[in-house]
Each structure stands twice: as C-alpha cells, then as structure tokens.
C-alpha cells in the first residue's frame, strides 16, 4: 500500500461496511420495484442528462487509428 498524502479517515474506512449493506438493500429493493412497475407498465422513461455508470468497452483500435 502506497503512503497517503491525505487522511482517509478511520471512521470512513469502518463505516463503509454499513454503507455497503444499506446500498445493497437499496439497490435490491429498487430493482424489485422496477420489475413490479414494469410488469404493470408503470415505468416512465426519464430524460437522461448523463449516461450510464458503465463504461462501454469499445474498439480502442479505432481511437488508435484516429490518433
């Protein structure tokens, strides 16, 4: 582990276990709700201003050719 140039905060390191558990429950319940809603056709398409969190693995060779 490289040395740090800022303090990550011990409390912050410990709390992440709890935060992750809460996040897990939240994400799970959200996906269940989404399934229920889409079953009843209640899902509204929202206007997106920023794309998804996932990076699309794209053909980086194309980038190479351009540069």
């Amino acid at each position, binding site marked *: *582990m*490289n*040395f*740090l*140039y*800022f303090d*990550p*905060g*011990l*409390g*912050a*390191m*410990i*709390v*992440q*276990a*709890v*935060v*992750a*558990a*809460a*996040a*897990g*429950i*939240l*994400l799970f319940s*959200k996906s269940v709700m989404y399934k229920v809603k889409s079953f009843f056709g209640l899902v509204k398409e929202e206007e997106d*201003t*920023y794309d998804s*969190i*996932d*990076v*699309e*693995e*794209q053909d*980086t060779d*194309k*980038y*190479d050719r351009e*540069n």
Partner: protein
Amino acid sequence: MTEKTNAHQASFRDPSGYIFHDGNTLRRAIKPIYFPQYNSLKDSGFFKSLIANELLIPHTETAASSDEIIITPENIPFITNPYEWSFEQYKHAALHTLKIQKYALSKGFILKDASAYNITFHKGKPIFIDTLSFDFYEEGTPWRAYKQFIMHFLGPLALAKYHGTEVFKMMQTHIDGIPVKLISSLLPTRTKISSVLYPNVHLLAKMESKHSEDYKAETKIAALSKKSQENIIESLYDYIKGLSLKEASEWGDYYNKTNYDETAFEAKKTLIKEWIKPMAPQKLIDVGGNDGTFARTVIDSVPHIIVTDIDSNAVDYNYKQVHQNKESNMLPFVCDVLQPAPGIGFNNTERNSLIERLAEYAPDVTMALALIHHITLSGNVPFEKSAEFFAFFSKHLIIEFPTREDSWAQSLLVRKREFINHFDFYNETEFEKGYLQYFTIEKKETVKGTKRLLYLLKNKNLEA
C-alpha cells in the same frame, strides 16, 4: 534529472509526480515511486480505454528515463474550479468520478483520491485531469477516497439541493472539501431517514468523531468485498443522478423580461456579429453573458468561448444547451464580477485566482453586455476601477453602456432613493473618461431602438 523549478503550485501533495511548465506547455513528471502503477495502467490498456471513452484527458509520453517519465497532456484552454460550477456541472463532475472509480475497480485499479479538482470542463464535458490518481486495488480494502468523495461531491450537492447553489462557494474556503460533521449539521433533520444520506453523511460523521482519537491506528478495519464497494458507488450514482434543486426556478427566460423588443434584440446581435467577425478572435469571453445567447451568435467562427454569469441558473441553462447541442467550444461557469474567485490553498497559490486565469487565457475579445450598470450602480464601482479590471485581461472590449434614460439603469438609480444625486456621474461622458484611461475607442454606436450605446474598445497596452 534536476527537479524542475517551475513546478505547478497545485501539485505538491501527491508524491507520485508533479506538473510543471515547460515554456508554454504543461507537462507531468512521474517519479519512480509511481512507475509500477504507471506502467501497469499503460500496458493493460486502461489509460487507452479511459481516453477513448473521453473520461480522462489524453496524454503522450514525451520522455522516459530510469528516474523520471514525462507525459504531456492535451492542453485545456481554461481550468474552472468546483466553486465556479453550476448545479448540473457539479452533478456531472460527481457522476464522472464515480463512473471512473467503478471502471477502475473492474480493471483492478482504484481512484486513490476523489478530489473535485481532478475534474474540470473541456470540450463541453467533464474530464478527469489527474492522470496519476490511480492505484492498484487490493482485495478486501475499502475505498480510501470515500470520505473525500463525500466531502467534495455528495456533501456539496446534497446541501445545494436544500440550500441552493450558493453552498458551492464553501468549497472556496474549504479546499479539502466541506467537513463531514458540518455537512451533517447543515442538512435538514429529515435527511436522517434518507437511505442514502443517513449512512453516507450522518453515520459517517458519527463514526468519524468516534474514531478521531485512534492515535496508534490500532482499530481493525473490516474487509470490504469488491461487490460491496460497487454497491456503494452505484447507490451514490443513482442518488446523485436523481438530484435536482429544491428551488429549481427554471432559468427565467431572461430575455422576455428585457426592456427592448425583438428588433432591438436582433440589432444588437447583428452589431456584435459585424464587429467580431473581422477581428477573427481565437478566444472570446462574455462576462455576464447570461445563458450564452449573444456568445452563440459567433459560436461557429470562434474556436473557444467562455461565458460567465453570476446567476447559477443561467449558467446551468447554458451548460444544458452545450450538452444538448454537443458544443465543444463553449465553457460556461459561475462568476461574480464584484468578487471574482481569489487564489486559494497553501501560499494562496494552489488554485489561481480568476483574474490570473483570465490574464493567462488572454481572450482576443471580451464582451460585457448589459453589465456595466450593475457593476457601477449596484456595486458602486467607479468607471475607472471597472476599466482597470477589464484592461487586466482584455485586448478588445465590446461593452454596452445603458444611458441614464434606459429603463433598467433608471430602475437601479431610483433604488438609490435619497442618494440618487451621488450617482450623477453615471453618464456617457464620465463613462468614456474612465475607460479612456486604459482603452481607446475603436467604434461606438447606438443600439437601434434602445437607449443603449455599444462600444468597441482597444486596450492601450496592445501594440497596434
């Protein structure tokens, strides 16, 4: 290799390397301590993939020896800081950071710090600029930069949701982000039942104060699986993506409230276009340019345009337009001309003041439309003083002067009540007297159908 003496003042914190000026080019030196990470990031194609996805600023390796590697990043014309962003910009910067962290995790790396200063806006989008911010992921370790992310991103955004975007200015006084305890105390009590804000802010603040006395670092840190860490990132992402301002006053269609009609509006646009075109500026700044309406009249012919405004909503509206129209040469940000962002951080030099950055940017044309009466009458700034401000960074200045007869200038004057006579100097003659100390008049015209004058001024220090 000798240590560069012209190292950038903002890059002393990270021992992995530093940025320095090589003439006019900004380069980044990497020290041997970071070689393993750097080589792994490079050889695994991680950098390449980030750059191809427009997440990280592109760079080229320009020199390599056993004690230093030099990389040269793509030039960014103007760096904006978090306290100069509008809500949507801040939000996108946060999402951008989380997106990179999630991708890094999937490739066996982490973001070792989540400072908001690692992001700036370039070509109409947020971009990550700290190439050395990555480290190896160690199985089971929590995210070291988690607290920093809360202090730099989630905290300010959540506070802005409840208190408005003025909150972002706190980043100016807290270069390391807003303290978690403070965020927690400023958030409304009802956020304690929020499934995201409770664990990520309130509980975090509690834990931090509980463990602040662990001087020997004896407390064991529980392991955290990669999946758990992804869950944290995703839930933060979802929450931030859904954030909107409580007082989301849609940018109030400013131009419907203005005091001139369609013809005058078009006349002003035409005049500006006619004056700017022959100058063929490479860089232009519109100070107090609202949502960028007037700057957009020349957007096709000017390679780089900055539009600032005091109104965060106007900047937000402008940024959304940039996003929608995929404009790559327009940079909006928030700025109050009466108190531009100062230099902050260690030695006051870590982040440059706005004036310094503007002087460095050196715009070919500066526009100040419908602004001078605010500076002079609301800010009580004498003409000579505001002329000095513009002269510091402007070559050519297009400035609009609403005469005393103009209804907006009238309304500002009337509000002075019994002091109205103190502002008798607000007139064309005095205006010119003040500005001629620093500028020469190139052109002067009345905007058709209005009580406003448009000037094209040239800085006296500019060689003819």
